[in-house]
């Protein structure tokens, strides 16, 4: 460069310029700045995923006993606390948060001599309660979680209606691994499941491709996994953290995938692991081979007791076989689960109705303990005029007849009363039979509840409609229309409300809004009750009752020291609750039989 005498004068140009020094006052941060944390406590579910992803262990979940704790909705009473001595403001916690409750704010100044002030429980107001705006917050285009469930191959309506073959095809290997890998391992499912299945563990095993470990984790709590993998009411999925912003993990289908892949020998080996080799010498009778009875039998047999199940029907399984249609639960899959339990040494005596072939009293004499697992096999009646007509059936009766292969006069047009899953089961079963017999479907279903309040699963309702079942929600049955001893239909009126102010069942009708559904058969599917005819009068007197149900303690123990009761008989309403009951009762029986020597 050339030098010049006047060169120093160039500095004069800087006199009018602003200095380049930086301002000392804090200025507002950029709109997506990563400052101190914010957390919406209402939206936060305490799943702890932020804690898991934090690479500096700066996040710790803190328990708050006063907060809402709702395992069924998937909410834990804990919230994240941040240690700003460790936080690096990477905001991975924000990008992975399944609910989107956590965000980083535009606040960035905190000066204090007290180190404790650097540990905060972020809320919506920020570290100093000054309500700084959100900075780095959830963005849909770079979410770290996959909110879309892997699609499940299912037969279409035309295909389904043709026969009783299973509708759902199950995941293939690739879909199962991808679906399993969506799980964030928060354990909400474990808490929500009545049996507290180890779903995070078996999902993790599946994403690692380890079927054996998955089956082992499943069998820790569930001896009927092929059944639950198909027809479980999956409270786990309702509670799943992924449910908040997308599809929950298909936990039920993953369980089914694990069981479908597992070799039978492997399943048997896993079921036998930990079985007590030496017989205890105690004998237990279980009445009923539904999920509650089978689970109790499984646990007790593993504990070394001699277990005999008495089953009134020709084959074991209870409602799983005689209530659930085969298109939802193929019976060979049920048989596989039951065979595992049989191979543990459980004897199942079918066609043996207690109270008829053998008395309860003799069981009491012969066995050290008796478990009642008889379920609810009698249909309730609406008791409306005309309901005593021979062409009025109960749904559970018809479903059992279908399973047993017993014929019944197949109606041209059937009217089903009820809005639960049993109503859907019978409507769809009859629809299939009509399709095979007459080439057309003629089933009408009426329910007291409005469409969105019906108790049946949403997919059941949708699939029933697809298969040609006409659903009329919000209607109350008035009487069966009988013309010269011939049933011709059901008269209904609009139902305005079902319960009164006190929450008691007291439907209100609009009598002016009448509809008559044509049909030569009416099927009632409004609830079931137990067949307690086996209890003699003396026992009836001695037993404590809770309303119409036998009173039991938390372990299923009745007021009689030798008698336990499990399953639908004491609390509903599904297989997984019965399994949970079975475990508790088996534990209680075991302790009672072994006294102080009982090993948990």
């Amino acid at each position, binding site marked *: *460069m050339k*030098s010049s005498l006047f060169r120093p004068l*160039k500095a004069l140009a800087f006199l009018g310029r602003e200095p*380049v*020094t*930086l301002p000392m006052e804090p200025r507002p*941060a*950029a*709109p*997506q*700045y*990563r400052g101190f944390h914010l957390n919406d406590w209402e939206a936060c579910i305490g799943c702890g*995923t932020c804690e*898991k*992803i934090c*690479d*500096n262990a700066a996040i710790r979940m803190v328990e708050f006993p006063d907060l809402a704790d709702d395992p069924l909705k998937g909410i834990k009473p804990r919230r994240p606390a941040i240690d700003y001595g460790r936080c*690096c*403001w*990477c*905001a*991975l916690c924000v*990008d*992975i948060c399944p609910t989107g409750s956590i965000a*980083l704010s535009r606040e960035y100044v905190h000066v204090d001599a007290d180190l404790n002030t650097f540990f905060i429980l972020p809320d919506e107001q920020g570290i100093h309660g000054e309500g700084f705006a959100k*900075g*780095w917050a959830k*963005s849909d*285009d*770079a979410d*770290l*979680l*996959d909110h879309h469930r892997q699609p499940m191959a299912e037969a279409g309506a035309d295909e389904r209606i043709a026969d009783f073959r299973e509708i759902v095809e199950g995941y293939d290997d690739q879909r199962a691994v*991808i679906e*399993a*890998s*969506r*799980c*964030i*391992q928060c354990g909400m499912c474990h808490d929500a499941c009545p049996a507290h299945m180890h779903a995070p563990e078996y999902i*993790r095993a599946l*994403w*690692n491709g380890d079927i054996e470990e998955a089956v082992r984790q499943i069998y820790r709590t569930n001896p009927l996994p092929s059944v639950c993998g198909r027809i479980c009411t999956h409270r786990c999925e309702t509670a799943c953290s992924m449910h908040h912003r997308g599809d929950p993990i298909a936990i039920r289908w993953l369980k089914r995938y694990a069981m479908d892949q597992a070799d039978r020998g492997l399943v048997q080996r896993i079921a036998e692991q930990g079985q007590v080799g030496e017989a205890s010498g105690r004998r237990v009778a279980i009445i009923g081979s539904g999920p509650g009875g089978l689970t109790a039998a499984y646990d007790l047999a593993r504990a070394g007791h001699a277990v005999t199940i008495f089953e009134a029907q020709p084959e074991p399984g209870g409602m799983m076989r005689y209530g659930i249609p085969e298109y939802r639960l193929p019976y060979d899959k049920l048989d596989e689960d039951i065979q595992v339990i049989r191979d543990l040494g459980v004897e199942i005596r079918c066609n043996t109705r207690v109270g008829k072939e053998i008395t309860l009293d003799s069981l009491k004499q012969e066995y050290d303990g008796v478990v009642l697992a008889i379920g609810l096999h009698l249909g309730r009646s609406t008791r409306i005029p005309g309901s005593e007509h021979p062409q009025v059936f109960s749904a559970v009766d018809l479903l059992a007849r279908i399973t047993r292969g017993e014929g019944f006069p197949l109606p041209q047009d059937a009217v089903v009363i009820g809005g639960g899953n049993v109503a859907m089961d019978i409507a769809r079963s009859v629809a299939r039979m009509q399709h095979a017999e007459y080439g057309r479907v003629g089933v009408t279903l009426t329910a007291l509840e409005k469409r969105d309040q019906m108790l049946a699963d949403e997919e059941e309702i949708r699939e029933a409609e697809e298969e040609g079942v006409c659903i009329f929600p919000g209607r109350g049955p008035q009487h069966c229309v009988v013309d010269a001893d011939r049933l011709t239909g059901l008269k209904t009126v609009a139902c305005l409300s079902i319960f009164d102010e006190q929450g008691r069942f007291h439907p209100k009708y609009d009598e002016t809004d009448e509809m008559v559904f044509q049909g030569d058969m009416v099927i009632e599917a409004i609830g079931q009750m137990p067949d307690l005819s086996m209890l003699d009068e003396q026992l009836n007197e001695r037993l404590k009752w809770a309303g119409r149900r036998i009173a039991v303690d938390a372990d299923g123990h009745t007021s009689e020291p030798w008698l336990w009761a499990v399953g639908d008989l004491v609390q509903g309403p599904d297989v997984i609750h019965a399994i949970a009951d079975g475990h508790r009762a088996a534990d209680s029986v075991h302790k009672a039989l072994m006294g102080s020597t009982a090993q948990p």
Partner: protein
Amino acid sequence: MRPENYKPVKHPPSEEYDLYFGPNHPGIEGNYALKVRLSGDEVQHVRADGGYLHRGFEKLMEERLWIQNIALVPRICVPDPVPMEETYSRAVEILGQIEVPERAQWIRTLCLEMSRVTAHLFYFGGHAATMGMYSNMFWGVSDRDRVLDLFEELTGARVYHMYTTPGGVRRDIPEGFLQRLSETLDYLETRLPEFDDLFFANPVVENRARGAGPMSPEQALEWGVTGPNLRACGLPFDLRRDDPYLVYDQLEFDIPTRSEGDAYARTMVRREELIQSIYILRQVIARLPSVKGPIRAPLPNPLAWNLPHGDAYTRTESSKGELGFFVVSNGGTRPWRVHVRGPSQMHAVQVLEQITVGQRLEDVAQIMFSLDACPPEVDR
């Protein structure tokens, strides 16, 4: 009588003395020391003495999920963190066979060049400071801050951006960002003549820096020198052109070289590179709005992300030279082994120990800085 194994203690010549140079001094961007032997003010011998910033990054990375490491890698080099994120992410993408969407590739290129601009501005200030010219240091740092403001807007953070992620980037560019970047580039261009007056064309600088710490092209190749330091020896090697990644093959730019191989040449090459980076950024600004699409490829759940068995070596032209990441996966959710090939390792150890010998004590700091080595990256 002396025992047989007696060896007399060897004393240095009486005019020589040892000086512990560092670890805190303006000669380098962090804590780093030299054991210098001097005779008068002439350097006789130098031993590099690093390790003050060793945090065990490579080992730490083995303990972290693939995605968690993006929060760790920028810390390996403070003044130029984006190439760290980029190189690591690219290795993970190779292992996981992830294709980066085109828009994300353009945004990543933008980030890399912005980072180069900040690093070079920091360098100008730093090099000036080693000669006691603190005005230039303030200017360099404050102009760098304007680019950091843009980084804050784009990535949410000023220095450790943690913005590039395997599969793409974490957020799209904000509204009006490219306009503001363009204005900042205009500003920087108006500043260059002033920097010239104050620093590059300053006779003091020229006299001090010319001939300081020279190396020949042969020596540079032998010692593993890369980046601007290599180009200052007359070798036009640049990974952006010679092993292009992202969208560099669609961009036009020159590769400035000088032939002297001394501190002055190294500084002047960086000055030219700043101009080239601005030129590249202008091309990206013109092109980016027309590149639509997602900013990140779909990634598996980071908690369950098993990368297949294998290894990958990726390299990036950082402001300091060739930055490489060798990442090995054994099929798990975390790296099995990561090795960082940082350019500063070569520059600050074997090169510095050689080229400082024979120089004067007051030039040691500027020679160190002219290599633009980054101690945290040397120590890792």
